[in-house]
């Protein structure tokens, strides 16, 4: 894949379900506060007492490579930007038919005012000016990140490599040598 693609990274182990990402998104996008949200945080519980695991997942539009919403939109209101792969909605073309919502596997399309579709636009106006998406900027635990997806995977591999080496050399772990967060 040679076209550039921006994406979110998400570190499951660091997410605390605090929903700061959601409220940062509300503030950035002047959301009405009626439950409409471009980002969802879910609590996933497995097991029963006393063996229980509780994890949290924060999800927004994944800006998919082969985005089903783009494919199904009858009015071609959805498109992928050639320069960064962000899936955009043209509100002048959107007819509010919800076809994108039925196709999207992540629940990304929202209809906050009951008419046009709105969803996460990756804070494209900010990102093209060198700023972060509001959700990634605010994340108190640094569970959320963003960037070109090649870089995100590289960073993850680097961090994992340090962990592997650290398991053989605990002193390295204690000093925290070379551990850079994605």
């Amino acid at each position, binding site marked *: 894949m040679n076209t550039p693609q921006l994406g979110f990274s998400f570190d499951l*182990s*660091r*997410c*605390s*379900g*605090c*929903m*700061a990402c*959601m*409220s*940062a998104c*509300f*503030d*950035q*996008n*002047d*959301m*009405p*506060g*009626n*439950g409409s*949200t471009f980002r969802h945080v879910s*609590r996933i*519980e497995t*097991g*029963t*007492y*006393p063996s*229980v*695991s*509780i*994890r*949290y997942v924060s999800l927004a539009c994944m800006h998919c490579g082969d985005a089903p919403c783009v494919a199904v939109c009858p009015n071609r209101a959805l498109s992928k930007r050639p320069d960064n792969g962000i899936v955009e909605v043209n509100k002048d073309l959107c007819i509010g038919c919800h076809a994108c919502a039925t196709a999207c596997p992540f629940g990304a399309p929202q209809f906050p005012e009951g008419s046009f579709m709105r969803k996460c*636009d990756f*804070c*494209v*106006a*900010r990102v093209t*000016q060198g*700023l972060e998406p*509001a959700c990634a*900027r*605010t*994340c*108190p*635990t*640094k569970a959320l990140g963003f960037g070109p997806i090649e870089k995100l995977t590289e960073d993850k591999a680097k961090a994992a490599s340090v*962990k592997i080496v*650290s398991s053989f050399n*605990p002193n390295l*772990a*204690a*000093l*925290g040598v070379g*551990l850079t967060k994605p």
Partner: protein
Amino acid sequence: MHPEYEYRYDGHQGKVPGAQTGIEIRKTICSICNPLSHCGVDAYVKDGVVVKVEGSKENPHSGGTLCSKGNANRQYIYHKDRIRTPLVRKGDRESGHFIPISWNDALDLIAKRFLKIKEESGPESVVFYAGFPKWMRPFLKRLAHSFGSPNYCTESSTCFRASFMGAALNYGAMGPGDVARSKCLLVWSSNPFYSNTNLARGILDARERGLKIIDVGPLITPLTAHADIHLRIRPGTSGALALSIANVIIEEGLYDHDFVQNYTLGFEEYREYVAQFTPGVAEEITGVPAAKIIEAARLYATTKPACMMTSASPTTHHTNGLQNHRAIVALVGLTGNYDVAGGNLVVPPAYLYQQSPGLVTREPEFEQSRKWEQMAPRIGQAQHPAWCRLVPEAQAMQLPFDIQSGKPYPIRAMLGFGLNYRMWPGQDFMEASLKKLDFLVDVDIFMTDTAKLADVVLPACTSFERSELKFYPQQYVIWTKPVIRPLWESRSDAEIIFDLARRLVPDDGLMQKGYEACIDWMLEPTKLTLEELKKHPAGYTVTGAKAPPFQKYKKNGFATPSKKMEFTSTILAETGYDPLPIYKEPKLSPRSAPEVAKEFPLILTTGSRLPMFIHSRTFRLDWTRSLRPDPLLDMNPKDAHERGIAQEDWVRLSTPRNSIKVKANLTEIVPPGVVSMYHDYPEASVNLLVEPDYRDPISGFPGFKSLLCEVKKLMEGNV
């Protein structure tokens, strides 16, 4: 919504700051939650209106992040419920009818009434109270004492002060865990992910470096997934667990012999007392398997250095909370982790509870403008003598009882900042007590239910509209400038206090010099000045401040009566309590009150933090409220199924005192047998269910986190 705010920026332009959009970034701090956070804020301002907020990267503490509450600051600032002008009540307290009044008339009226009451019944008849936020406290306390009243009290009568007392009784003082340099973290009933996100981030970083974590607490928090061991106690049994951990450490000879031998008092009595708390006995009391207690004790005692992290009140919101907390923090000294790198450090706070190593202001001297001996006994003096020995405030939990009884003297008037009667156990008793006052003044941002009871209501502004001093642990300090002008006729709490000081305490020369002169006076030992700080609107990192040395006790002893770490507390012995950190069951538990438990078999724990709320402060904001819109009771699926309750069914949560209507949230966050309810929901306030005197006799703290209840499905409303 404020008229200035009708303007809405087009979100599609992304609110990018710059000349093209006309958006300017101005620096301030968020003061929605407590002083341990107060994250740095970049306010995006256009035409005098805040159009967006985000975390300031210059602030090394919050590092550019904000929590779910902080991001909702715009709805907080521009909320329709903001009080617009000073108001004076017309008609009786039930009427809720007010008319606007000028600032001058309001302040003159307050001064006239307070001075008259002082003349008639003494200055102690006037109570000065500070709730959230805490930033105005130094000025209010000084105003109270200069006025002559010992009755300065705060929301800390249910928050943090009891843990402070526990540590002070044992050690004189003890600071938080030095997580960054530690190898093992013992977290005791604390969830920093929802109460102190900057600390939580540091714990995750340390965990990735190999930090061992032991998590103690009945609930599963986001920290639990990172813990090597989770000791899932029954609420209220912390003391028994701590004593059992001590039992293992002593039995196996894992304690710090040098520390115990040379620097402690009462070890033999303590050893004898903990002998009965074998892991088997503790398993029966706490519900934690004995093998896990042993494993945790060994891990904490043998991994050096190890630090401990408690929270503001989960360990002390029990009827035996103070002694439980003493048993917990005794483990720090027992294992030799007191005031060592990577252990629990002793660093005096710089200003307003926040430490900034090497920087200490004259805040305590500023506040105490009159000695206690020169004033009448404080509220709570007779009931909580140990509190009065250690805490430089009155005990506000005693206040409604004293208003009602008129003893030892009449309480007639009160000046409250952010006063909220729902904070008191049996809140209706506090509400009724406030109505008995001759004269009640409430200063608040919003027209709250408590403000509606007042005779005079004054509008305060938010942190975005004022200047304040703030220290952070990174030796970073900021003097904020207002990023917008105060909305309507609202004023800074400090301005209100100093305007009252001109009328009430003309003899207090320092206060007459004004707010900024007082800040400079407090700053004097730090060598910082407001003049210098004003040159750094984004804050300033102090260089050359030297952190205090470790193990200061070796040279100076401990700040206790015996100068030693006290396993047996001299102060508790002198005030008539058991000097050992003894364990007692919560007054209402299945073991201590089996008769009550027949009808009310579940354990109710309240007030455990949620990420989007902080006490009563963000319920009214759509952005935070929409994250958890209904008053949800966390309930284990097993207990729910036994009662025929499904997810989000309406249920009735009852104690022998009262009941509220809530919705069931089925979750494994709570263990079977325990339900957890957040406090302060306006429509379902759980403090109605707690008796006003369900309190720890030593600290006066309410037993909010362990009592008995039952939950029943409601037929109506579930169709």
